């Protein structure tokens, strides 16, 4: 469904991605693990069209989307829930959802989807007129997911959705990931929390220093080692 072939992205002279190739299968949860600084968020931004790759190709359902603007990529059916959520802090919950549907023009369908988001996330319904900047971290994460869903994506990219959340909220986030996937949304998930991520993922990749170094399915023997590598890198970086 989403194919990344030999993608390299640089910040000035620093090469953050050195030729990444991976695939996200339709209807599946694919997870990208790796220590801090491995290039996970860079890959997400590159796929979403925020960063332009120096080389390589990104295809959505076989159509080339490399180099398209982020607006066009959203219109093609790919949405990103960014790290740190990045909701619109001075806009209400309702307006955040409307902004998520910016590329759509079917007003009745949009209104229906807003109601659908409210029933899926009752907390957002309670706070629909509240400024997003005043929501708790967990509520902002719900809003960021709902906002991305408002574009009716075929593929949903999620960058560290559990970051900085209380353990109960983390459980909630992964429950939402599993629910969405059950409803048919293809998900590409970046996580530091490898244990949780591997519970919902059908397939995973390990990214280290800008390269995919391992790929497989959860539950196999190699998993332990991969978790070690993903974690040890992050633990060291945090210490």
């Amino acid at each position: 469904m989403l194919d990344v072939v030999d993608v390299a992205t640089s910040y000035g002279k620093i090469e953050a991605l050195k030729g990444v190739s991976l695939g996200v299968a339709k209807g599946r949860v694919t997870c990208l693990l790796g220590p801090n600084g491995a290039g996970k968020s860079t890959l997400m931004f590159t796929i979403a069209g925020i960063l332009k790759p120096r080389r390589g190709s990104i295809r959505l359902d076989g159509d080339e989307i490399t180099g398209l603007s982020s607006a066009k990529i959203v219109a093609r059916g790919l949405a990103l829930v960014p790290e740190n959520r990045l909701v619109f802090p001075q806009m209400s919950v309702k307006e955040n959802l409307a902004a998520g549907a910016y590329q759509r023009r079917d007003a009745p369908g949009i209104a229906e989807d807003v109601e659908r988001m409210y029933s899926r996330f009752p907390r957002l319904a309670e706070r629909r007129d509240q400024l997003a900047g005043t929501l708790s971290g967990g509520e902002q994460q719900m809003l960021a997911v709902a906002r991305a869903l408002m574009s009716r994506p075929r593929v949903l990219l999620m960058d560290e959705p559990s970051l900085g959340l209380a353990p109960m909220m983390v459980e909630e986030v992964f429950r939402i990931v599993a629910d969405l996937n059950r409803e048919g949304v293809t998900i590409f998930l970046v996580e530091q929390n490898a244990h949780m991520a591997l519970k919902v993922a059908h397939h995973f990749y390990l990214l280290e220093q800008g390269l995919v170094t391992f790929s497989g399915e959860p539950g196999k023997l190699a998993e332990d080692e991969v978790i070690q590598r993903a974690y040890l890198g992050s633990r060291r970086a945090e210490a």
Partner: protein
Amino acid sequence: MTKLAIDLVQNTLDGVMVGSSYALLALGFTLIFGTMRRLNLAYGPTIMAGAYLGTYAFLHLGFGAFPVAVLVLIGAALAGLYVERLCFRPFAQTAAMASMVSSFAVWMQIEEAASLALPRHLNAFPALVSGSLQLGPFFVRLDHLLMLAVAASATLLVHWALYRTRFGLGIRTVIDHRHAAALVGVPVTRILLLAFVLASTVGGLAGFLIAASEAQITPMFGMWATTKGLIAMMLGGLGSVPGALVGGLALGIIEAQAQWLLGPHLRDLVAWGLLFAVLALWPGGLMGAAGVDEAAAVQRRV
């Protein structure tokens, strides 16, 4: 009513009328600052370019007030497009200084061009209506009343566009969080250009109303419009739409009172003193506290 009370109310009335055009100036300025997060020193000269186009057509082609108004708006919009392409589009958002300095260069360029087109320092500008209306002990100039009506309608129209249209939603997402706006599919570069042109057109309308009430224009009008717009915007708070209205009206009223109390020569001095006092004591402006909090919130997130 005592003589003092009558004078104070009369000054306030005058201040609200003139302040309505300041508010319109500040509205355009704040739309540019809010979306770009950079200061456009060529804002006033952009308006002056439009006004000069109008006055040229008035003097040499015999255009009436209404076609001149249309020309002023078109001229300001085109000049705004020019400034955006030249001073803002090529530089990254973080290169605020490059944009500011190049907008200063464009300011000088527009001023030179205006002087070359119409070499006399002072040029006639078509007046709208003359006469005044008496309401009890108070007098209101008819052209000021018209100014208030047009400025209020234009403000309502901009407000409607910002809060009820898809384009307005795009502008507000860019003002609130440019990066997130790109992520949800707002074409940020296009929105920036359109907001810039819209803001320049709003400024052009303010410029037309002011020049028409003065019935004259000089190349210095560009600098005048930048400074008045800047003070009104700073009073209200950078990048805040309600702030622009409050700041513009407050500036108009304070100037009118100062002129009555201290004389016309000290009027601008009071305006500048006021700007300094607000920046020193209340850096977010009267309505801009949220903007300051937002900056702090972003700092915390990073």
